[in-house]
């Protein structure tokens, strides 16, 4: 939750109000869980048939590929993915949960450090670009990827990887 609040504050500084809203709402949602408002939700993990997940991914991929970036159609597709996410993930936690093994504990620390290091590199680039006013000397990931996403191949690769990643994380992998 601290990360989401911190990210929301960072986006206030950035002046990116859409991102403030996204991370602020996420932090509030997480806060409701921290304070025990976990009794709402499905009693079991919902399972969607694989063909349905693949259909959603295919329709979203084609739409996002052909729709202009930053447009109403892309906005609508992204908004439509929220209820799907809720349907797949908003079930209650099991009362008895597995305890982490040593390898699991180690893996969480290592992947957590990896994500933190990645985020800090991006932060150094962002702060550097703001202080120097030079986006090329301090390139953020957005600066590097933005022109790539304006090419047909770049956009196709991003859309496919992003949607398949989401389907794997929140749909397909969780069906097992």
């Amino acid at each position, binding site marked *: 939750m601290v990360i989401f609040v911190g990210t929301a504050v960072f986006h206030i500084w950035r002046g990116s109000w859409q991102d403030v809203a996204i991370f602020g709402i996420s932090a509030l949602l997480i806060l409701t*869980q921290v304070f025990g408002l976990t009794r709402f939700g499905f009693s079991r993990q919902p399972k969607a048939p694989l063909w349905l997940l693949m259909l959603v991914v295919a329709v979203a991929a084609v739409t996002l590929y052909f729709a202009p*970036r930053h447009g109403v159609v*892309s906005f609508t597709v992204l908004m439509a993915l929220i209820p799907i996410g809720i349907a797949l*993930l908003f079930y209650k936690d099991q009362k008895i949960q597995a305890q982490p093994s040593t390898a699991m504990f180690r893996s969480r620390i290592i992947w957590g450090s990896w994500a933190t290091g990645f985020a800090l590199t991006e932060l150094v680039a962002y702060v*550097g670009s703001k202080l120097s006013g030079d986006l090329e000397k301090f*390139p953020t990931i957005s600066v590097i990827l933005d022109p790539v996403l304006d090419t047909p191949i770049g956009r196709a690769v991003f859309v496919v990887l992003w949607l398949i990643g989401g389907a794997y*994380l*929140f749909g397909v992998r969780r069906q097992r």
Partner: protein
Amino acid sequence: MNWDLLIELGYLGFVSLGFVFVLIAKLKPTALVPLDTLLRFIFQHRITRIALFMVWWWLGWHFLVGVTVR
């Protein structure tokens, strides 16, 4: 100092390191658990499920809907 090179090497380094971790987990799961197992474990908690979903969703939003570069 050549900051742009340093930062780009940083991104590339972290991406490569991620692949190395995945490989280590495949070859020696007693040292690092496979990503699938790690995800199954952390997804036991609804807080983690919400957090990961929001991060994934925001990535799509940021690059496809929002204004990426100011």
